[in-house]
């Protein structure tokens, strides 16, 4: 997987994860182009489109679009599955996730994604394991917060 984008129906970017390095300018350009292309597509259309030499797989969940760019011989259905898995994880973690959860806890959303995918490859397929890892890290985070709330 080359990158993953999350954006709202209004075209606002909510999350972006790049597994292939691009300069910021290029990233912005790609993001803009993709958002407009995808938002222009009608709901009944298929979730795949060919874009430059990549394949774009996207899916809409409520008001959020999840969009992944994969290479030519990658499996589209598998990518859809990854997206779905991610949505499920967010849902489990936040408890029926909504766009606001991701806006306000965007770092958690990133952490979750990092557990699921490393370097663009699926790392952990078990939802249980991901949630366990996240919970452990959250705990760790709280402990260190608890140590000294205003440490110097």
């Amino acid at each position, binding site marked *: 997987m080359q990158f993953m984008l999350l954006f709202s129906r209004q075209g606002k970017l909510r999350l972006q994860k790049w597994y292939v*390095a691009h300069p910021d300018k290029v990233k*912005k350009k790609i993001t803009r182009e993709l958002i407009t292309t995808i938002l222009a597509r009608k709901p009944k*259309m298929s979730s795949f489109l060919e874009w430059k030499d990549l394949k774009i797989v996207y899916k809409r969940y409520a008001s959020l679009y999840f969009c992944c760019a994969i290479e030519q011989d990658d499996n589209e259905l598998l990518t859809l599955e990854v997206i779905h898995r991610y949505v499920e994880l967010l849902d489990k973690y936040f408890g029926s996730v909504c766009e606001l959860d991701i806006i306000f806890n*965007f*770092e958690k959303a990133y952490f979750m994604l990092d557990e699921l995918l*490393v*370097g663009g490859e699926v790392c952990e397929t078990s939802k249980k394991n991901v949630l366990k890892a996240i919970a452990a890290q959250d705990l760790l*985070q709280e402990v260190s917060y608890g140590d000294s709330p*205003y*440490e110097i």
Partner: protein
Amino acid sequence: MALRKVKGNLERMFDKNLTDLVRGIRNNKDIEMKYITQCMEEIKAELRQDNVAVKANAVAKLTYLQMLGYDISWAGFNIIEVMSSPKFTYKRIGYLAASQCFHQDTEVLMLTTNMIRKDLNSQNMYDAGTALTGLSCFISNDLARDLANDVMTLLSSTKPYIRKKAVLLMYKVFLKYPEALRPAFPRLKEKLEDPDPGVQSAAVNVICELARKNPKNYLSLAPVFFKLMTSSTNNWMLIKIIKLFGALTPLEPRLGKKLIEPLTNLIHSTTAMSLLYECINTVIAVLISISSGMPNHTASIQLCVQKLRILIEDSDQNLKYLGLLAMSKILQSHPKSVQTHKDLVLQCLDDKDESIRLRALDLLYGMVSRKNVMEIVRKLMTHMDKAEGSNYRDELLQKIILICSQNNYQLITNFEWYISVLVELCRMEGTQHGCLIARQLLDVAIRVSAVREFTVGQMALLLENANVVMGPTTVRSSIAEVLYAAAWICGEFSQLLSNPLSSLESLLSHKVISLPGYIQGVFIQNVFKIYARIVITAEEEEDKETIEEVTNLLLERLPHFTSSGDIEVQERATCLMQLVNSIQKGIQNCEKFSLELQELFAGEMNPVAPKAQKKVPIPEGLDLDGWINTPPSSDLDDDADDKEFFGNAFKKDLFTKAESNGDNSRKDSKEISEDELQKRREARKLEQANNPYYVKVSSATHSPKFQKHDNDFDNIPVTPLNLNVPLKLAGMTSVDKYLIVEGRQSKKHKKHKKNKKHHQASSSEEDVPDTLLVNRDIGEMPEGASVSDEEDVDTRPLDDPHRALDIDLDIPLSPTEKIPTRSHRESSNINNKVPIEENIMTSNIKTDIEKKSKKKMKGKKESKLTKEKRKRSKNVEKSSDQCNELEKEAEEKIIDNYLNNKSDASQSKSKELTNLELLLLEDNNNGLQQENGDSVHPPVEEIIEEKKSLDPVDKNKKKKEKKAKKEKKSKRSGRKESFKQYEEIESPKEYEDFKEEKLPNMKSLTQNSDIKVNYHASFEHPCTDLFIGFEITNQIMNGNIGDLSLAVQCLQSLQLMTQNSSDSILITPELSAMSSTIKQLRFQVDDDSIPLKLRGTFSYKLVLDILTSEGNLSVVELVEETASLYGQSLRHHHICLLAKMKSKSLYVDGKSDNSTLLANALDHLKQEFHRL
């Protein structure tokens, strides 16, 4: 200090946290920009504080702003600070920010190497996990090289969580540092059998990704994967494995045969669509790779097609799309099995989703037959009329042409119909494929002689109505290309023109001037052809009036073109103008020109193979690049020539891409080879004048049909309308007409069928007999050249990282192949261990360091002394602490060196063993300290502190104050190395050699990244004298080594014979880069029958050491003669230096966020160097 703390905490309470920021942005939608600018200012202020918590908060906010599209690259250092925090909370935030905004070219990344290494090796598995995930996002070539070993070590971590991530990260490492692949691969392979399914799956992922790019190197893994495939139930992994097999089978057909069965089983059994889809894909790949001869070959194809049909019929658009996609793959190898599903594909053409329609279009290509081509093309054309986006329309246009032209027009039975289709396609608004249509027109006109007359008629019409056809949007549309073809066809086959005079007029119309230059050029050339035709005909008919009329027309219109800005148009027009002028004069003298004119364009025009021109052999002795004449001062003339032959993109296109068309430079290679070079220029000019597009006059010229058309076209009203909408032109045939005709024919056919049953039986329905003779040759080629000799090239772009990963993994590893542990860097690591952290550490941490540094009193005392002297900041301790560690670590290395000295008779009659143990303590810190103790100082930290207004008393002073300067020589310490060497000195002859400067049999004693020491030992008469010669080589690419000396600890039985009594011997004051020096030392041995151990220490100084020590900078990166250094002042002012060694002088370039600091630092270094 305490006050500051309290203040910091108080301030923190009022800081915005991330939630506040997000909320603020949402509440200030109207003035978002302004609000964010304000927030940025706050963040910058927060980053200036010492509190890590505040910084982390600021960095978290920055990460959010980065997502909104704001540039946060300026905060790179701060992000690294937060990353380096020992608290997981902050580390996590820091790594997140880094993974979001760093990329491989981020400069600050070079500062992170050691910090990341520390995190990777952290006891806390989540620290390591965070580092691994972060690294996967921003790994650079250098990081990959430096950390490859650490990541590889993590492959055998006890925690599956770490193993899993490390495995996946290895892939990124390989991409950036291909050298790691071979040494790391065995470990990776082990992970395929890891007890943890997650790790196993990760390993499969990585190997699959690697193998997809370079499958041939992974064939040997097939059995392992086969076993995994048949045993695993993890669909995620299965998909990857099956994909891997898809990449492997083309290389090994036997594998394919073995795969079919398990794959078909999976296809039957699985309920997961993704797995099903992957299986089908791989089965297709297998079936493509293995030729027929499989028993259940058709069965599996049928199965696939069947399953795909189910996918296509599914209401889910995604499955439909993928079904069509996979179907088109089958189409390539097994068109027959797909053709039965034509109904389905046609149905998909009407789908609402454009991408599905496009996929269906791809399939259509293989479904067209002679019988249905007209019907399908008509359907596509109606789609084209309805289509909204010009993209889709262009796609349709391309597909129509592709379908019709496939296999040299195999499917076309009626070429008049095809020409009409093409003419109709010209009317498509704003298409980008004008060129494609033009090519088709040219191709058909040349290949199908029977349809030429019709084509010429249509083209003449096109030309006459050029303005209508093209509409006012000419400029942007590529449809003008069609006029290029039209003009050429009319000129080349001018004998078929019904009304040459009117065609001539339309070619010379003043509107032509608005066309692109190269099209105008073609126009003029063809004007000449038509003109010649008219003159020839008229002369035959003794029609002087027509000749005069035409000549005058040309003379009247051509001046428009002779003044053209386009060089080609100008030249051609001027040429023609001169010719016409002379003809006019000739006519007045009643001369006849038909013979000459006929000669000009004589010759048969045949299709030319696509690469024909490229394959024309260059005659011997011809240098295409050399000047024919020495270039004149203004090379305008040559430019024109160049343009004529090479400058025209469209023409080049025609040569290289078009299947075949008129060879527009009918170059005869033999002729050229015989021509003298000087004549060639003239010949070329002549060639330009001669129109290359010409077919010799055929008898068809005066066919009766010619007259018939005349009447029709005379009636065409020429209406110069400026309308956007292309109009249907009277006289131009419509495609539909042919369908009706076809219909009638088929009806007639049916009627005849009954009568002529026996005739029908012989010819199959599919095989409609060719009514037209089509030249289906590949085209003319130069003698001896064949079309198919193409090189097999790697099509991947040069910068594709996967190219470098094409590494054979089956060759056993050689001992030299291992991931470098970067001895050079590691040795300096002791020196600058975790440099950033330590530099970042603020005063509160210093106490810590102080404790540590007590361990080594001496160093501390020394630093304390200087501290008092120079009022330097406490940071010194830190540096000296580094130094102490260094001393501890740089433990003595023992080189046991047994010299089994076979002595000869003169020494001793019996064989004696002289065992010398040379212990070399290489470049130990102490050595140098003793030697030039004066210059030994703790590292310098130059700090310019801008005193803040914390202390009210100081408020007035608020001046920049050089707080402290410290110096210390810290040496690049040798890495702990120990090795034993056993060797035999074989022959006594060496004694003689030994006296010479060159030492023949040097044995390696020790080496590090800087120097290499070889030695040679031998006995001299009397046998109590032992000579040891050292050859010291400076291995630094471009750096001098200074003050190289050797200190030997003498033993009682082994005394060093020196003039002075000092402990160390100066070997050389300076050793330049890559050079070596030899020093011979004489030892006195009392008793040569006992093993002796000789200890010695080499010490030396490097330029870089001076830099690092004098500036208290840490080496971040070292590439050959360039080094980058980084340091930070107490006030967190960053300073970066780039030092370059160029032809013995040192260039230092610096950057800092405080220019005064930078200036002072550079000044200081300069002084130091001068002092030295």
